[in-house]
């Protein structure tokens, strides 16, 4: 579900027919029970297969026949991917099949990463959160979806299984533009590791969407720690304003070691507006989106500073 263009592309297409479809094309269906089986199936179909997890982004695209896979590989029956585990070091390990609702309801997540709990509250609606998975959301890589931004903000690392074994990719290296990742055709995200936030970190999350649960027009997520009157560590991530969710190192640099005053925040906002490259779409021009993300980053920094202050004392 692209966030920058109309969700549904215009009916006129280069191919022969209009895109007034609402029933999926024919496909085969496989429901492997192990990661090995799943990657083997993906290898066998050589790019024509699609993984279905929650399906909340994939099925609309199938219904519209925007995708015509030869086979769906349903990974929901693979055991062991649906848990949120304590990593023993203050962080969490989250299985790829963990549903958004599990994240929303998890006390562990709320204790370790309250900003993630807040972010998940902005993902669509209850029925979608009951089905949608973290692995699916990351793999789909919508530029206006929350989780791709959050795993980058939280310095997450993704475990990826393929026919030749597993590899680990930092969240910041995983995304490669709109709806694109570094995943090969036969690879599956199996797990996301989120390391502990620094002690006393405060957070701020701000999102603007046309309606509750809609894809964001823009959103910003910030964490920071205080040392005396200065900002120590700062992280700034944004979404909906670039071809993918991104961290903004330029803004982080403006914040780190600075006094949290209006001048610092203004400089961070300017750095964000400089770093992003939004598109025009139905809901907002690029100019408005650039303005908006600055407003949201400023507000998120403000919240994060005040929460950090609470943590500090």
């Amino acid at each position: 579900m692209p966030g920058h263009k109309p969700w549904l592309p215009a009916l006129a297409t280069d191919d022969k027919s209009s895109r007034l479809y609402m029933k999926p094309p024919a496909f085969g269906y496989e429901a492997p029970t192990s990661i090995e089986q799943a990657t083997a199936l993906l290898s066998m179909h050589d790019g024509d297969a699609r993984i279905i997890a929650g399906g909340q982004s994939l099925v609309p695209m199938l219904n519209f026949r925007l995708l015509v896979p030869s086979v769906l590989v349903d990974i929901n029956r693979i055991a062991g991917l649906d848990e949120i585990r304590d990593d023993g070091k203050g962080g969490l390990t989250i299985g790829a099949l963990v549903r958004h609702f599990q994240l929303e309801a998890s006390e562990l997540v709320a204790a370790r990463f309250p900003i993630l709990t807040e972010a998940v509250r902005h993902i669509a609606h209850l029925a979608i959160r009951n089905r949608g998975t973290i692995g699916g959301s990351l793999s789909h890589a919508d530029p206006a979806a929350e989780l791709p931004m959050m795993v980058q903000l939280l310095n997450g690392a993704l475990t990826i299984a393929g026919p030749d074994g597993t590899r680990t990719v930092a969240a910041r290296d995983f995304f490669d533009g709109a709806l694109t990742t570094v995943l090969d055709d036969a690879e599956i995200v199996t797990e996301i590791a989120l390391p502990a936030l620094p002690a006393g970190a405060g957070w701020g999350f701000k999102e603007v969407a046309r309606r509750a649960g809609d894809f964001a027009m823009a959103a910003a997520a910030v964490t920071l720690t205080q040392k005396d009157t200065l900002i120590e560590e700062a992280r700034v991530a944004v979404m909906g304003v670039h071809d993918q969710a991104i961290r903004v190192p330029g803004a982080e640099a403006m914040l780190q070691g600075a006094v949290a005053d209006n001048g610092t925040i203004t400089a961070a906002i300017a750095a964000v507006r400089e770093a992003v490259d939004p598109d025009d779409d139905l809901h907002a021009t690029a100019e408005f989106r650039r303005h908006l993300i600055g407003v949201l980053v400023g507000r998120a920094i403000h919240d994060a500073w005040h929460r950090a202050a609470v943590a500090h004392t």
Partner: protein
Amino acid sequence: MTGTASGKVVVSMTVNGDRVEELVEPRWLLADFLRENLGLTGTHVGCEHGVCGACTILMNGNSVRACLTFAVQAQGADIETVESLGTVNDLDDLQESFRKHHALQCGFCTPGMLMTAIDALRKRPLATDQEIRDALSGNICRCTGYQNIVKAVRTMVQKRDGDD
């Protein structure tokens, strides 16, 4: 699941307490399966892209969009639709609350709204009207303006929490 030459596969699940087994194409949406194969037309189809919520059902106790789930994915699942609730002559408490508060007009969104409300009442505190509104925000109603639906659900929250 076993495949056939026509590409159809056998799928079995429990629907409203009955065990069903049917041959379906993998591409058949659960909403179409319930309506066309099983004749359970209480589950309505309003958009087929997961936005309107009219097709919301319970799958293993969780509300899901029947238009974003394939019937084959429900293999072995426990499915509940609006037909599992009270009957015309014996509405259940939630249905009665909807009737009492005039929480439906044309009735097209109502089955999905009821199934969503059941899940929200189980999972969420719904302490304020805004929380109820957020919980229902994935279900579009074009008739009521939502005010009376919120009232109907509020009554059920009070009943659930024993403070009515």
